[in-house]
């Protein structure tokens, strides 16, 4: 009589496993030429990188990258709620300008009386004052020499 022995059943496979998924992915990448491109790129990586670096080292490229960065840096300093207000005010202003119809509002100049009335138009002055203040700050900032944007930005001097 054979002795009683135990046997652990191997669980059946349900659905594709990772290897099968990978095979499918490889086939798709192959059919669409992506693998071929990746191979080409990998084989030529030094040359491609050299082209990139050469392009990167051009004054115009560096300026562009730095300027985009400056925009990013400026944007990073504006609280979103302020930027929202300004951005949407500009958006509304643009909308208004683009839909302005001369025929409806008339085209004649205000004249001296009209200008005098404008000087007493509180609503108009309320609208213009922030723009004038902004222009003053803008002019002040333009007067300030910037040697190194990151030092200006962080306040930390650097001779690096």
């Amino acid at each position, binding site marked *: 009589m054979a002795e009683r022995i135990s046997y652990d059943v191997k669980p059946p496979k349900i659905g594709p496993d990772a290897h099968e998924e990978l095979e499918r992915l490889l086939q798709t990448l192959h059919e669409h030429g992506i693998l071929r491109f990746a191979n080409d790129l990998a084989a030529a990586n030094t040359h491609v990188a050299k082209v990139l670096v050469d392009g990167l080292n051009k004054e115009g490229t560096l300026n562009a990258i730095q300027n985009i*960065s400056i925009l990013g840096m400026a944007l990073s300093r504006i609280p979103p709620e302020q930027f929202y207000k300004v951005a949407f005010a500009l958006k509304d202003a643009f909308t208004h300008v683009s839909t302005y119809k001369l025929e409806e509002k008339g085209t004649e100049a205000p004249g001296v009386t009209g200008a005098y009335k404008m000087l007493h138009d509180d609503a108009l002055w309320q609208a213009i004052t922030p723009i004038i203040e902004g222009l003053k700050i803008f002019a002040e900032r333009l007067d300030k020499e910037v040697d190194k944007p*990151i030092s200006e930005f962080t306040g930390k001097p650097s001779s690096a």
Partner: protein
Amino acid sequence: MSKTTECTIIYDGKALSGQADIPLIEFLAEHDIHLSHVCYHRALGALQTCDVCWVEKDGELVRGCTLRTAEGMTVSSEGRAREAQHEGMDRILAKHELYCTVCEHNTGDCTLHNTVADMHIPIQRYKFQRKPYEKDHSNPFYTYDPDQCILCGRCVEACQNVEVNETLSIDFSMEHPRVLWDGDEKIEGSSCVSCGHCVTVCPCNALLEKTMQPDAGPFTSMPQELKRPMIDAIKTLENTIGAPPITAISVMDMKWRQPEIKRTKTVCTYCGVGCSFEMWTRERHILKVQPVVEAPANGISTCVKGKFAWDFVNDPKRLTTPLIRENGRFREASWGEALDLVARRLLEIRDTHGPDSIGFIGSSKASNEEAYLTQKIARLIIGTNSVDNSSRYCQNPATKGLFRTVGHGGDSGTIEDLQKAELVIIVGSNMSENHPVIASKLKAAQKHHGQKMIVVDPRRNEMAERATLFLRVKPSTDLIWASAMSRYMFDHGYANMAFLASQVNQVDEYRRSLEPFTLAFAEQMTGIPQAQLIEAAKMIGKAKSVCICWAMGITQHSHGADTSTALSNLLVVTGNYGKPGTGGYPMRGHNNVQGASDFGCLKNMYPGYEKVSDDQVRAKWAKAWGVPPEKLSDKVGQDNFLMVQDADEGKIKAMYIIGEETAFSDANSTNVHDAFTKLDFFVVQDIFLSRTAEFADVVLPGCPSVEKEGTFVNTERRIQRFYEVMPPLGDSRPDWRILTDLAARMGHDWGYTHPSQIMDEVAGIATIFNGISYERLEGWKSLLWPMKPDGTDTPLLYTDGFHTDDGRAVLYPLEWKAPEEDTDAEYDLMLDNGRMLEHFQSMNQTDKGHRVTSLSPNWFVEVSPELAAERGMEEGTWVRLTSRRGLVEVPVVVTDRMKGHVLFMPIHQGKPGLNKLTGEHHDPDVNTPAYKETAVRLEVLPKEKFNQPIPHGNFRYGNRTPLDGVPTQVVEVKWEREDYVSPLEQAPHPERF
């Protein structure tokens, strides 16, 4: 943790509780707070050079690395401290160019990169400035780039105070300070022994393994003409966008390198110190060996071999397919065919000529589990006790001496005990070359704690130069001075009479045996002046704790067991056993020569030193293995030495040798080769086609330690696990698996699928290994046998008595016997021999890749200046050395390491090798050949002189520059510079300090 060692500190306004009197940095780390630092290292302490860890305490700025925790300590890292930290880092960055994404070192453990990232540096204050020095590539293993060096001094501290090779320094009074080798600018030609300590601790890429260069990262191998403009472009952008976006890229780079880098704990496969470390690999490429503080035997220490000599692993000459001898050639074979052939032939020979017609030599470099399987096949399947290992050639005499006197065949304590000893005596051991990491520990104990050291040796080696007292002894006379010391102890009241009375047998008999060993006799025979003998005796007698280390200079003699016994007797007489900092320490030569014996590759012992001739023991092992006791032989087998002799005489018909180069390392190699050719069947299992394998009928490709799992036992009796770093190369297989498969083909299907199962089996049978398991050896954990079933181990032996029948030590009477071979009128010079630091045994491992070999490629003989003058020899003069067995021709090295008519030759190089000269005379107690007793004749040959037998770039020609250390001698010079200013001010020339 007891309450008295706890404290609460206030850090940045937060109360933190933890251990008192530990470094603040470590304390904070335990609370997941990282106080930025660069030069501080757990193994080196506070060097105070980087100026990055500033904190404010009691209103003053102090370096945080210097603080130790204490109750109530209040520390702030904010405000002024933060400003000072950033200034410190800015000064570092004036000396180090950050190009981390294209730097090989950005693999995750670059302290500098990680600290810069942690500190969120917006932009570096000072421009990086180059130093007027070139990158040094002159060492075969590592480079030094002064432009990247931040002058933190970690390397200097490691070299001066951990390795204590005392090569590196920084002179901050120079206009452009840099790391110096022997005070000079080049590594080659300095005293640098390439131990790698400096590279291990370097916090950046200034000191970097060549194996990391150039492709440790995906972008690091691009050519310099591409790298340089890329770095320049990024630096330009950084002026506008600041450092954080660039640092973010380098952090990403560090992260995406991680999946392809594997870090695996392994244990060194060279000497018996048992260094463990992480091996960093990418696929099969070994990027670097990185020691860690947690490693129990070595900490951050390594030698040149452990750190750098791994080129053999991927060497194209590795055996990857079984080979079968056919028609006078080897042909490749499948594993099935090869193993079937081995199984069939061994069983045939057993059945035809009897079990004792087959001999096995296990490997002192393979694992414990593999040693166990080797003896299990020999004993259980073949039925012979003829199984041995290379300890026969080196360590058995030492073990015999310990068996006779105190009972256990292993070191009495740990490396820590050696460090604690008030006095260490080193006899017949070139420790700094053969066990370099233990030598470093002792050099450090001497340098920092005033440990005294006596060295007894015919050759003035490094330890002799450093010794408190060096006794240049005539070869083969060590038993005399050791016994004379014992007698002196009794005669002058230094013997520990209370200890002797309570714990030692045969005291009177032993004392009587000392009668002939007067100081006058000792002086006459050993050549050591009486005054020196007395000085040594007083040092031993007065010391509170004494350790004796000895090695092949004692054991490889015709009476090495007696001399080992004499040394142990001296320890017993002075009561130097069973206390911290005491005991006998035979220095085991191979990584697992201790384990091969411990796990049963001995002709008379089962694993755990259980005697084959003891019926109860035999019954125990037979029961465990499931056979009746009669199936196991109770007859002591043949050892290596006698197996070869028996093969020569036709008594042994088949041999199975695993990982041993017997054809090169056994004495009188001509006779060994003759014996091998007479075997009916010969199996060799190895990683290379060794000289021994050339005689084989079947060659089985095994694996080095990095391609398998297992355990080793080091010289301390410390059992450590090693893990698979990479899969076996080609069709090679782990040796334990080969042996398991072979046993199955011989009708014994043991079914091991992992070495842990083999260890579990041993732990269930051998008493001293009860309680051992792979779980208890996980990671950096280790155990020192003898074990107890509950898992407790025994770092220090004999604290509860001795391992003898009645628990008492034995003083073993001895008489001096003349060596079997001595000089005479014809063979008038004595030839000493031994290992060189940079090589290992037959060089089967160390000559691969040629980096190690480049340090000392040539064979040579060292002669004393007196002998050179007497025989008209100069450096490079060719000589013929003729012994009573054979002759070799080599160039000479004239050196004051030697004196008089004693020569020295390394054991590694040479096609015929040193054993062309050595003889079969041996210690009759243990059959260890007396390699060190070789008399030779020297003839000067009329040949053109050999240019630089030891290349002049070799470290042996260096001139060390000892320093107390960075905190005391180096950094203070920096602080005294005129341009060194407070960390709250801007420095005028931060690139210079």
